[in-house]
Structure formats: C-alpha cells, structure tokens
C-alpha cells in the first residue's frame, strides 16, 4: 500500500486559547489536486503551515509521506500568499528561483542547481526574464517566478496559499493549465477563500471553517460549502467550461 502524501489525524491548534483548528482529519493522495476552501479566518493558512511544519499542532498528528513534516520538507514546494519584500530588493529572477534549491549551511549552489533553475524557467516560459529585477515584473510573471521557486527542487507536493489572489481573472485558465501539467508529477494543495477559484482540474475539495466540514470529490461538495458559508452555494468556475457541477 502506498504512503499518503499528507495524513492529518485529530489535529487541534490554538492561538491565544482560541481553537483555530478543531479535530481535523485529512488525507491527501500522491496525485491529488485538492482545494481547501473556506472563509477568511477559517484556519486555511494555519492548516498549510502545519503541513509545512512551520507550526506544530497542540494535539494530533501530521505526517507528510509518512514522516514528520520538517523531515519531509525537501519533498514540498511552497507558494506563500504574500511576499512582502522591498520593491528595490536587489535580486533578479534567476537568483530568486535559485533560493528554492537551498541545501544547508556552508553548502553552495552547484552547476546542477543552476541547470535546474534554467530548466524550470524554460518550463514556465519566463527564461527570457531571468536577469530581470524581481519587482520589474507583472503580477502574472511574478507569480510564475514564485511557482518556479516552489517547484525547482522537484517536490512531490506543491502547496499554494491563495494563488488566485495575485493574478488577473483572465489569467486563471492559463494558471489552471499549468497546474494540470504539474499535477502529473506532484500532488497539489491550494487554499482559497473564493469558491469560484475551484476549477475543473481540482479533483478534491476540503471545506474548512475551524472544523473540516467535508472533504472528498468536488461533485458532492455543495453541502459542505453551504455549511461553512451558511448559505446555498452554486459552484461555477470562471474558466471554460463554466459550470463544474451539475444542477442540484
């Protein structure tokens, strides 16, 4: 039997005595494309940080490929929600992506790392921007750079926090094409407060608002969404095809 990419069991987490995550159990398989949906403040980013090992649960257990998240970090690629850097930050696209290949103290980047960076820039169709200073990019280009940085060490899971927030609506379909391509090689977890961000490519949904209300196939998720948003939800994607769910 294969090991789950992510296995979360009975996880509780508190901030200042307030329960942010309540008894969460969640499995993610090796080639899953999962969207974690829920209102702002519902604990989505917190859950990602548990998977990444940035936060530790107060109780319960998180395993990534059967090991402690910190030990599995080499298998994870991460796209943070906000990257709050100085607009003149002295770094170009190439060096930004290269930081994704970090090996440890006293270990420099090798030619293999540099080749990997060029390859991923080529893959993301931003190779011609490699010498460009990072803030001299459009929102969509910058997002590709940060996705490149996340996947440059060929992770088994790509973890993205609100990836739709930083790109224009018309770029969503090309974003999802890219995700579909990456999904052949790795599991993808994305978090969004926007139900519309879920597209045809997503094959599993988890509805999170402190508790996990539903997780499973997209088709059956409407009830879970209603529960966390406290109103009926119609699932429509902005891409093509428009409707991802049957009428219900």
């Amino acid at each position, binding site marked *: 039997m294969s090991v789950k990419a992510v296995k979360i069991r009975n996880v509780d987490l508190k901030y200042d005595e307030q329960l942010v995550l309540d008894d969460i159990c969640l499995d993610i398989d090796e080639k899953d494309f999962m969207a974690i949906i829920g209102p702002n403040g519902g604990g989505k980013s917190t859950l990602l940080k548990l998977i990444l090992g940035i936060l530790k649960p107060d109780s319960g257990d998180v395993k990534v490929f059967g090991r402690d998240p910190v030990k599995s970090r080499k298998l994870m690629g*991460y796209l943070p929600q906000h990257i709050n850097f100085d607009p003149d930050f002295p770094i*170009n696209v190439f060096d930004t992506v290269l930081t994704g*290949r970090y090996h440890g103290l006293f270990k420099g980047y090798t030619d293999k790392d540099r080749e990997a960076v060029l390859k991923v820039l080529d893959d993301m169709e931003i190779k011609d921007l490699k010498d460009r200073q990072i803030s001299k990019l459009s929102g969509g280009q910058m997002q590709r750079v940060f996705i490149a940085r996340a996947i440059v060490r060929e992770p088994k899971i790509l973890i993205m926090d609100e990836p739709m927030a930083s790109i224009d609506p018309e770029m969503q379909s090309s974003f999802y094409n890219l995700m579909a391509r990456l999904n052949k090689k790795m599991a993808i977890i994305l978090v969004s407060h926007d139900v519309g961000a879920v597209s045809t490519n997503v094959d599993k949904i988890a509805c999170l608002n402190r508790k996990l209300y539903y997780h499973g196939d997209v088709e059956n998720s409407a009830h879970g969404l209603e529960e966390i948003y406290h109103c009926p939800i119609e699932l429509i994607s902005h891409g093509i095809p428009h409707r991802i769910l049957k009428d219900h």
Partner: protein
Amino acid sequence: MLEIFQYPFMQKALVAAVLISVACGVVGSYVVIKRIVSLSGAISHAAFGGVGMGYFLGVNPVLAAIPFSIVSAMAIGGVRQVAKISEDTAIGILWSVGMAIGVIFINLTPGYAPDLFSYLFGSILTVSNSDLLIMLVLDVIIVVVVYIFRREFLAVSFDEEFSSVTGVHALAIYLLLLALVALSVVVLIKAVGVILLIALFTIPAAIAKQYSYNIRNLMILATMLGIILTTTGLVLSYIFDLASGATIVMVLASAFAISYYLNG
C-alpha cells in the same frame, strides 16, 4: 587642500572613514533591504548604555558597548518568540532604556565625562589607535560572517517564511544578522555617535540600491559611496569648523537627495 591630510589626526580620521564605510556598506545593505532601520536605531541608542558602563568601570566605552548592543539586538529580535510584545514596542522600550542606563552610569561615575559628547554625536577626529584596532577587528568579523552566511542572509531578507521551508533556520539567521548590526553600531559609535549613526547605516545603501540589482555589487557600491561621502564631510567639517558627525550626516543626506532627483 590636500595638506590637511598630513596631520596624524586627519590620517586616522581617514582610516576611520574607510573602516566605518565597510561596516555601513555591508551591514547597511541588509538593514535597508530587510527594512530594519528603526530596529537598528534602537540597537544604536541602547549601545549608549554600554558607553556609560564603560565610563563607570573605567574600560574603553567602545568595548563596553559591544555586549550592550548585542544583548539589546537579541532582546528585540527574540521578543516575539518568548513574550506577547511586538517588535515595535520592544524597539521603543530599548531605544530609551539603553540611553537611560548610560546616563545613570555616567551620573554614578565620579568626576566629569570629558568626551561624552563624542559618543552621542561622534568625533571622527579624535579616534584613537585602539579605537581603530577595534573597528578593524569588527570589520573583519562582519565581512567573514557575511561571506559565510550570504545565501542564508539573502534568503531570510527576501522571504523569511519560504526560506524556513527550504531548511534555513530563519530565526537564528535573523538574530545573527542583528548581531552584525550590533557590531556595526560599535564600529560607528566613535565616528558619528549613537544618535547620528543610523544615517550612515541607511543612506549609502539606500543610494546604492537605486543603481544595483545585485546584493554583492550593492555592498561594494555602498561602501565606496560611504568612503567618498564621509571623507567629503570630514573635509568640509574641517574647512568650516563644524561638528564632524553632523557634517557627515548632512553630506550623506544631500547626496541622497541629489541621487533621488537624478533618478527621477
């Protein structure tokens, strides 16, 4: 005009200008891009507590400032981890408490503190050989540490959260960076004083940042600018008989204004 450099005190001041510019160019670049200017201001003011302690104990105030500035740097950098106090609040507290400790130590020291003013506002013309030696040693430490940890410093300055996911021990690297800020403060104290030194941290790197997209070039350019601008300030202060620290700061500020204007 060059004859003024035949005076030994001027030669020492010139050496001091080079030594402070290295600390400013290298560490100042991180201070500016990591946006820890006010934090560095707090460390520099807190260092005055060490200066006062040096007077009280009868040791070189520059040396006594080292533990003070390092401890305050660690306190500000680590406060979020151990207590519910924001970094901003910690900056405000340590900024003034360090100064207050310095004043009290000087009160407790019998007699008059003759060159106290020079630690507040700087006196690059009175740096001693032992001051220069301390500055040189600290510069060497700073450059070596930055060379060894350049990848980590860059990663943490750019995106702390992502860097920790790739395996950088972000907090430890951040504290190490703050320790370097603390050492740089000590390098700068004698030349421009605790109150004015933040200008030297900030301005050369801020000017250089307009011209360079590469951290190494940024550091080199900031160091060069530091040498040129502090020397200019030094000469002007001599010609017009003005306070050296204040003149240097005004030259830096003018250069920043001109550079900003030229860059549109």
